[in-house]
């Protein structure tokens, strides 16, 4: 053991160094903890979360043309689209649209298949429920989109 090593051990320099490190870390500005329900976490831009069926913001009409492509694209067959023929215009009109979240893996294939950008996966991640019934979203819920509870600090 050299002389300097001996003095390091006797004067406990290593321990004091460690103590100074922990002391310096006490500044609250080092803390990155998110206060979750009070503070929304930053979600990645391309995160795929809860579904939303987009509507035309000006008229409030649905963008969906009931082409059934999303239902065909869904690997788990979770999307059910039903439509009726509008007698006046002769166009297909959307009647019901349901998404079953219970087996959805949020692959985003429905989003890719949609030709009018009607179905979209939003960045909302809070869809825990007390019963399984709520997992099937109907057209009304989908058009309203996710409604996260906002807490204030």
């Amino acid at each position, binding site marked *: 053991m050299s002389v300097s090593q001996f003095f390091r051990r006797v004067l406990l320099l290593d321990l004091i160094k460690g103590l100074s490190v922990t*002391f310096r870390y006490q500044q609250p500005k080092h803390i990155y*903890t998110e206060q979750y329900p009070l503070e929304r976490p930053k979600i990645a831009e391309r995160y795929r979360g809860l579904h939303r069926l987009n509507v035309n913001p000006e008229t409030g009409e649905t963008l969906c043309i009931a082409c059934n492509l999303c239902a065909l694209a869904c690997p788990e067959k979770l999307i059910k689209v039903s439509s009726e023929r509008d007698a006046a215009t002769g166009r297909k009109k959307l009647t019901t649209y349901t998404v079953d979240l219970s087996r959805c893996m949020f692959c985003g294939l429905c989003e890719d298949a949609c030709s009018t950008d009607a179905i979209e996966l939003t960045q909302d991640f809070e869809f825990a429920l007390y019963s399984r019934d709520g997992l099937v979203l109907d057209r009304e819920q989908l058009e309203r989109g996710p409604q996260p509870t906002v807490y204030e*600090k």
Partner: protein
Amino acid sequence: MLQYFTGYLNQNVTPGEAGNALWALIYILIIFAGVSLIVMAMNWIERKVLAHMQVRLGPMRVGPHGLLQPIADAVKLLTKEDIIPDQADKLVFWMAPVVIVTVAFTTYIVVPFGRTHAVTDMNIGLLFMLGVGSMSTLGVIMAGWASNSHYPLLGSLRSSAQMVSYEIAMGMAVVSAVLMTSLTSGTGTLSMIGIVEAQKAQHVWFIFKFFPLGLIAFFIFAVAMVAETNRTPFDLPEAESELTAGFHTEYSGLRWSLFMLGEYAAMVAVSSIAVTLWLGGWMRPFPNLLKGAAWDTAFSCFPALTFFLLAAMAFRTFVRMPKHPGLRMEKLGLGGFAALLGLIGLVLLVPPVRERITDIYWFMLKVSVFMYLYIWYRGTFPRYRFDQLMKLGWKFMIPTGIVVLILTALVGLRLS
């Protein structure tokens, strides 16, 4: 009766010396309540400081900045199911936490919070504290044995070995400080108040006496007291990663909280021994350098100033809290707390109160430095391995302690 009550206030001695049982009882109640309050506060401070050291926030949800967390914890622990293992030795299992808490609180009888602020002054005060304090090992062993389970038993065995080996080093350090007291009158004293009076008479804290010697003795005691109270880095009896919770693995609810109460009370008690022996007990800083009535008055304003500072901090948080109906109760509570702290500060400015409280303030300030050190160690140092612990105790602390003791005696002989 009234004369019996008020007469004591004019005598400048502890209730024990005055033979006043009523005031002794009042002091015991104040100390009991105060220590319990300190334990609750320590619970919050430890979680908060440790969290900040680990770059976390710590408790934030119960009350502003988690201030009410200790109360929430207490309510949770009291309402928890009290489990006694089927194969446990019921009587001993029941007695173990009681023994630990009783022992931890009994030591406070001789702790001198001020010249007149101790329940009594025994001429063997220090011996009493060390003797009663080391009985907490008995509680630990009882808990480990009565649980009838492997982890608690191993934990309590470790505890007894550790306490036995560190008590010797502790004793050596303590005796060298006691030797220093003999320089004033020719005979040393074991009375806690006498030790502080000796430091006053010699115009020096014993940590600076015979320069490196007092410091080394203090250092040995500072390490041994962490080992005695089973705190990190010497927390082998309750080593979480190896023994789940050590000797209190089988305990839950109220009994477990009694163990915690005993542990923290013992921490304060041992810190107060260190403060009494080496850091001048209740004496204010620089009593020789800055003497005179004016300085005395200035220093006696410190307790009030501390409370005003705390009140200002609480008030600042109160002002900066956002307006929100959900936070109304919290905001009102914090505002009330700030007002209460300010009021206590005002009461402490009144001259008769100020003169009585100043000793207690300086004593508690020195103790709180040690309490912070305990948390700081816990945030910094990893746990010792058991053979390293024994090696440190027997091969380093005890020989150093003996050498310091002999050198102190020799230097003292030369001087007298």
